[in-house]
């Protein structure tokens, strides 16, 4: 058994830095006299000695193993997601291009609007197709498609699971 803790250690226990405190607690956990003296100043200090109780090593090893598996699983999932994200973006850009092409073709084939159609035609909105990218957040895209008086909103998001 090493020497007992000094009187100053007990008097200034609350002011000790973490290393000095840990050292005092470790000693007191093995020394009845110092433990009694520590606890005599404040019985709740007995619980400081809980710091000296080691966690069962086999439980810590199991934590390492479980954590390692979980990180591997997350890493694989992340690789999978990034591959899918590239495919998703390519597909959505291609689709947008096809839709824009079809709308343009339809506009060229459609007759010009007559001047005497009156206010009804004017209220029906633009007589041509228009594709607008409303928002791009992360991997999600929202396309606003106007064809004649019809509006189609298309949402592309790899995380949407239908």
């Amino acid at each position, binding site marked *: 058994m090493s020497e007992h803790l000094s009187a100053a250690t007990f008097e200034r226990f609350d002011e000790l830095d973490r290393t000095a405190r840990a050292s005092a*607690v470790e000693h007191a956990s093995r020394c009845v006299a110092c433990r*009694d003296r520590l606890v*005599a100043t404040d019985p*709740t200090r007995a619980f400081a000695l809980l710091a000296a109780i080691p966690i069962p090593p086999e439980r810590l090893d199991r934590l390492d193993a479980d954590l*390692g598996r979980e990180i591997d699983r997350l890493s694989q999932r992340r690789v999978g997601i990034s591959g899918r994200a590239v495919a998703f973006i390519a597909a959505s850009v291609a689709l947008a291009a096809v839709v824009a092409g079809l709308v343009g073709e339809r506009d060229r084939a459609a007759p010009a609007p007559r001047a005497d159609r009156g206010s009804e035609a004017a209220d029906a909105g633009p007589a041509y197709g228009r594709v607008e990218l409303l928002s791009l957040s992360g991997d999600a895209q929202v396309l606003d498609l106007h064809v004649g008086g019809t509006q189609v909103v298309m949402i592309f998001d790899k995380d949407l699971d239908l």
Partner: protein
Amino acid sequence: MPQPPDDAELVRAAAAGDRRAFDELVRRKRERVVRTACQITGHLDDALDVAQGVFLKVWQRLDRYDSSHAFDTWLYRITVNAAIDSLRTRGARGGVALVPSPEVDEIAGAAPTPEGEIDRQALQRAFAHLAAGLAPRQRAVFVLREIEGLDPEEIAVVLGIAPSTVRNHLLQARRILREGIERHYPGLVPGPSRRAPGEGRE
């Protein structure tokens, strides 16, 4: 012989995706994280679940860690928040164990206490019992101060509260625990015969 990397170097390497650096960081910090979570939740299994969640969060968020603050402070903050959540969830499921349980004994270890060493099981049982009477924040403050040895200013940063609030929680926690010891565990405090002035001291 090369010096082992310090925590800051490991954190930087792990943030860059170095898995071995992260594993070493876990190895250095795991016992502290499990012990803190264990004393807050009162259950070793819950503490291990908390610890796994804490380290997963650290792995996923290391790139967002602000190195102007101590890594341990950040780690304690994640740990305490997760442990308090776990404590509240268990409370909603039916409460913290108020009586000694085999799990409490497992925390302290099943081996008999060698002569002169502290009776781990008795101490752990007493704390598990009495700390159940503390509010989660009081419990966290007491664990960080008395068991982990953090100073009130550091605890204030960990919990995001004022140092004066930390001191107030600590006073309340000590008062409740002291009353509990006197009422239920008088044996934790030395008796008059073992408290004789100067006896076997220094």
